[in-house]
């Protein structure tokens, strides 16, 4: 089973997934329709469940919060006010938006830190040759431990693997829509395809992520079905028999996974 244990850590957490969904809707966080968002979020969770993917507890907690908000929205306004405010008097819907706004700011600033990180790689400090005056001071003892040495070993190993590998270390920019087309193309010539086969040629984590999102998207658009012939057997993906033709273009998200800002 390990080959399709694509964890949903694609999204770093429920907030990340929510920001992605909001971005897809192209609305401001403050304007977002939480009821719709709740539905979409829960759909994703359901799909994860269908794939037997490991769903982190935080996603489930968020799902229940969203369910609560959704159910609350469905009540007439006059019945809502007193009864549904939680003990602390905070509006859960407001609290969620506050959290999303805050998280988004940190996500943005993390991107700026990343730019600084990359920039730093190209900055070299001047380390001049040693000055030569008579009787120089004794060489000071280096401030390192055996752990620094071990770390250095690991760095060598990592870089060695990178250099030695034939694979590109740069992040490939895949789009979900390309992958959607790819899956459709395969299924137009094959009756069915095994889940693991879809990822066989993947070159990078980001490609796996895009393929996976494409798959979810196609399932959501009811283009595909997934089947498992026996318990713990390989999942098979096949076209939905009475497929209605749904255009691919408008709804396909373009994203680089992990940066949904």
């Amino acid at each position, binding site marked *: 089973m390990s080959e399709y244990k694509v964890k949903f850590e694609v999204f770093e*957490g429920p*907030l990340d997934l929510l920001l992605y969904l909001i971005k897809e809707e192209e609305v401001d966080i403050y304007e*977002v329709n939480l009821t719709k968002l709740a539905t979409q979020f829960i759909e994703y969770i359901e799909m994860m469940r269908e794939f037997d993917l490991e769903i982190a507890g935080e996603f489930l907690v968020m799902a229940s919060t969203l369910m609560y908000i959704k159910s609350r929205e469905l009540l007439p306004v006059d019945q809502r006010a007193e009864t549904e405010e939680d003990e602390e008097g*905070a509006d859960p819907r407001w609290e969620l938006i*506050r959290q999303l*706004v805050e998280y988004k700011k*940190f996500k943005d600033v993390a991107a700026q*830190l990343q730019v600084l990180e990359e920039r*730093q790689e190209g900055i070299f400090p001047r380390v001049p040759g040693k000055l030569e005056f008579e009787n120089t001071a004794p060489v000071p003892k280096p401030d390192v431990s055996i752990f620094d040495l071990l770390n250095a070993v690991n*760095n060598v190993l990592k870089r060695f693997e990178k250099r030695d590998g034939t694979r590109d270390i740069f992040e490939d920019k895949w789009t979900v829509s390309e992958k959607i087309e790819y899956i459709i193309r395969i299924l137009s010539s094959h009756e069915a395809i095994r889940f693991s086969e879809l990822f066989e040629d993947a070159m990078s984590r980001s490609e796996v992520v895009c393929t996976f999102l494409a798959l979810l998207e196609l399932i959501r658009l009811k283009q595909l079905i997934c089947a498992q012939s026996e318990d713990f057997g390989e999942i098979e993906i096949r076209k939905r028999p009475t497929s209605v033709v749904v255009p691919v273009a408008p709804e396909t998200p373009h994203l680089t996974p992990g940066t949904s800002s």
Partner: protein
Amino acid sequence: MELKYILESLLFSAQKPLSPAELREVFANAAEQEDADATVKSLKKIKEGELNTALEQLAQDHEAAGRSYRVVCVAGSWQFVTQPEFAPWLKALVGVKARPTRLSQPSLETLAIIAYRQPLTRAEIEQIRGVNVDGVMQTLMERGLVEATGRAEVVGRPSLYGTTTLFLEYFGLKGLEDLPAADELRKIVVVKPPSSPVTADADLATSPPEQLQMPEGGEQKSEAGAPAA
């Protein structure tokens, strides 16, 4: 002899970045030398304020000159560094700068939260990120970018975390005030666990809506999340 040129020659010849304290030590030691002349002696007890002014001036000089290097202050110590656009040739000269692998997205996010909000507890970080941060915290601590700085005066006395000097060095920052958009991010009010004896749910405190500044004041009362049709 102008102070800034003396400082320049020191930064220029030093094997490592120099802090104002170390620079003052140099001036003091120089004045102790047998052959010290009047100028050298006159600078024996140079004030840190004077040093800092001259160092800032020096950095500006080099910025204005627009050559291939600059004088910068990283984590409180001053040094000469080259401009990034010369990296291709410098790599060929001194070898690829051995840096640990780049930080992952979760690490960067967590680090950003700690940098702007320190000191804070793990629970507070998790409240902002919405996920468990155990693994990420371990990585950040192992890499020496984050450290425990004390304990919060709340039930359980959880550890408080902050960034290290290495963090500043890693990102080439002068200090925490040098963080991008620092003001804006600190403005969002985060509710700290109460510092008085607390009830069991101390960590669950959430900010009341008023504390978050909204573009328009009344909006939070409106039906932003109107039921879907």
